[in-house]
């Protein structure tokens, strides 16, 4: 074996450590932590950067170069933007315009790279369809490009960094290693969260030694994430493709499919984020939460304040507010006010911004019309909610019911539950046709006999069903406790050490025994890693 082959094998082996969720948590993470701890504080960020690059290369091979080049580009652009901000030789207005031009150029470059890797085939195929409509067909040869790991996530982080530097909310970092680490930190590179430079940079670059509390709480969070991911999501996963094949015509099957996929997706994504947050915590980095009991939200808008929070706040801060306050939008709002009055004008700017937010949300999820539909679905629902909220509250006061009363809460919960699962049904459907036919069947053929007859043939045995739904009950119980702010961790920590240890041993063995891994299970990719 020559040196190149040896290095390649070493990277693949290390990559295997990182890719398998078990190996990541039992070997990759401890090995990285030990090397980190043994390294002098000043150099610890280089250990994290090295581990992140190896992690990246093991999953995305040579595409690591793209991430590194983008890091260099972002680092340089941020310094350039800051330089313009500090340049007092030019007038303020001119300076702002120049800074904005540089920022826009930087953002467009980053978006072009993203589009180049992820959306070219989609655009090409749609160009072919459009050209056929005009009877001047063009050809498109599929490129099937592999995208660098986490490009959708780190592109947004890079945009937020450049924008924040441009807004002078943060200073441009002079250290290329810092910017590269921010854009490739291994726990968050696969599925986010989409963190802000100002939030995690301090702890990430400080090189603080690992302490007992961070280590213990980090691993406890990882265990919770593993439970959600491999005991619930991965056990449920084999049943999902059959439910979405489009071969079942029962509305009952469509409803169960929507419900089961919603559970799988939430457990997979929020479980992975728990693992990410726990892993970062080990190194003293406290990452932003991405989920706060989303199913207890009071409406669709509130749901998106609790589900994939960092994506929502990104769109809020970098699309919604800037668009709402943009001069052309303000001018347009004034015109609307003159024509249609204050009532309509009140909704104009937020609606335009909301439309762009949800279009971006749909497109960000990937090159598929079902994702764009998913974005538009929430745009329409939130728009309707915004209009109806006030009349609804007036109606409640008329019938002497408070917003917090149980009937209102139950109504809101049921309404939102169906909104969520129908949205997820379209989100998961391979094509719009499948989604529409499943949706129609709920209204035209709502029977449950086919579901009941086939529930035993969904690639899940009885015990897998039991462990999934018992696991779900545990997650619901914990979510309720979190929602009512019951101090779970404090209560646990107040228990005698033997009881506490026993509790964690039981948790670990539940994951080992009921997890879907090893022989007889196919490894399940992280759902949000594909976006």
């Amino acid at each position: 074996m020559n040196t190149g082959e040896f290095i390649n094998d070493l990277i693949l082996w290390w990559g295997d450590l990182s890719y398998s969720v078990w190996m990541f948590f039992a070997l990759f993470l401890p090995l990285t932590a030990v090397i980190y701890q043994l390294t002098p504080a000043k150099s610890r960020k280089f250990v994290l950067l090295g581990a992140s690059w190896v992690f990246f290369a093991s999953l995305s091979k040579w595409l690591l170069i793209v991430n590194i080049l983008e890091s260099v580009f972002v680092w340089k652009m941020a310094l350039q933007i800051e330089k313009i901000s500090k340049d007092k030789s030019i007038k303020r207005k001119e300076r702002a315009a120049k800074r904005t031009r540089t920022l826009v150029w930087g953002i467009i470059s980053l978006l072009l790279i993203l589009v180049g890797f992820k959306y070219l085939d989609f655009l090409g195929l749609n160009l072919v369809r459009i050209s056929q409509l005009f009877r001047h067909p063009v050809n498109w040869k599929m490129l099937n490009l592999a995208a660098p790991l986490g490009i959708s996530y780190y592109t947004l982080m890079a945009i937020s960094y450049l924008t924040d530097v441009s807004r002078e909310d943060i200073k441009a970092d002079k250290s290329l290693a810092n910017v590269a680490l921010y854009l490739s930190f291994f726990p968050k590179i696969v599925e986010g969260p989409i963190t802000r430079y100002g939030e995690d940079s301090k702890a990430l670059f400080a090189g603080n030694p690992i302490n007992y509390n961070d280590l213990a709480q980090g691993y406890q969070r990882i265990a919770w994430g593993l439970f959600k991911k491999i005991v619930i999501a991965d056990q449920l996963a084999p049943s999902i493709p059959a439910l979405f094949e489009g071969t079942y015509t029962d509305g009952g099957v469509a409803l169960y499919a929507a419900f089961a996929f919603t559970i799988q997706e939430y457990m997979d994504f929020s479980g992975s984020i728990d693992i990410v947050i726990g892993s970062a915590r080990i190194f003293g980095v406290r990452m932003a939460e991405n989920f706060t009991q989303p199913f207890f939200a009071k409406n669709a808008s509130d749901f998106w304040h609790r589900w994939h929070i960092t994506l929502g706040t990104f769109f809020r801060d970098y699309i919604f507010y800037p668009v709402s306050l943009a001069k052309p939008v303000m001018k347009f709002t004034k015109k609307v006010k003159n024509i249609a009055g204050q009532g309509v004008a009140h909704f104009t700017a937020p609606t335009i911004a909301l439309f762009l937010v949800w279009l971006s949300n749909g497109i960000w999820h990937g090159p598929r019309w079902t994702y764009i539909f998913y974005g538009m679905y929430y745009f329409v629902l939130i728009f309707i909610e915004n209009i109806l909220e006030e009349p609804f509250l007036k109606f409640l006061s008329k019938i002497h019911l408070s917003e917090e009363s149980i009937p209102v809460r139950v109504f809101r919960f049921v309404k939102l539950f169906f909104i969520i699962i129908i949205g997820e049904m379209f989100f998961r459907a391979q094509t719009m046709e499948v989604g529409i036919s499943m949706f129609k069947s709920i209204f035209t053929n709502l029977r449950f006999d086919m579901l009941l007859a086939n529930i035993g043939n969904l690639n899940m045995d009885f015990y897998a069903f039991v462990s999934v739904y018992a696991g779900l009950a545990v997650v619901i119980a914990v979510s309720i406790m979190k929602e009512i702010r019951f101090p779970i961790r404090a209560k646990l920590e107040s228990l005698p050490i033997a009881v506490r240890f026993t509790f964690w041993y039981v948790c670990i063995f539940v994951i080992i025994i009921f997890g879907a891994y090893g022989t007889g299970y196919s490894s399940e990719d992280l759902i949000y890693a594909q976006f």
Partner: protein
Amino acid sequence: MGDLGKKKNNILKAAAFLSVLAILIIAASLAVKPKYGEVYDISKTNRKQIAVSAEKKDSIDVFFAGDSVVYRSISPLQLFADHGFTSYDLSDSALRLCDAVSMVETAYEKHSAKVIVLETDALFTDASPHRDVYAHPANALEDLLPIFHYHVFYKTWLPSVAAESSTVDLHNLLKGFEYTDSVIAYEGSADYMKEGPSRARMSKECLDYLNELHSFAKEKGAELLLVSVPRPLGWNDARHDAVADWAEKNSVSYTDLNKEDIGIDWKTDTMDAGDHMSFEGSKKVSSYIGRYLTENYNLEDHRDDPDYGSWAESYREAGIY
């Protein structure tokens, strides 16, 4: 307590926690590791055990063991209808030999078949109960700590349940055979047996499991028969010779249907271009094997025995013949 004391205390707590965890994992590994007959896929072998245990005690005359080639080629219902003896396909997709042997051994807890037929495709695939430890560190972990390999052990301890009954019912209706209406013609050479390497060797693990099955058959007073089903994509002269050598050396009967004229038409008799038999192909293979077994082994005809009335009923209910 000072900072140093607190640090020491934390280190001690972490060490105690990890030590007890290690002991628990090792103890659990020792508890779940089978004392003998390790298997690769405990879920598969367990499913088959549940299915075959649903058959009436001592009611099976012949067991067919092997991978997917078996359940696509040999139909116990057709064999019963044509010859009157009972049989069961103890096969699963990509089944490793260790699991095939374990399935047969477990099935003998309830049955005492006179013949064990092993389809030979499984003799040239990985037979080990363990995954390749060099291929992935997770495999090494499973090998080192069997709790990770046998973590679904509880399924073998708990009873089978109603939710699985539909799968088991379907399985038992066809006695392990799987029906397909798929047909994709094989368009390769008719001389496929001459293709491939000049020599083939069974791995040491395959030989060990084959010897174990042979000894087991002897111990149970059963005959072992090796059968190779027609299969252009997976069989050739080199493999035939390796099996024939072993069979001769161990005085075990071997029949290779690739070398017999059983009227296979490769346009209609394969479901996937030469890998597995189509339903039409399975009729020809079952017909040949039925004759072979009837002529060479003293198998009872149960067709007029009211105790085996359910077999005739299954044949009618299946509605595929």
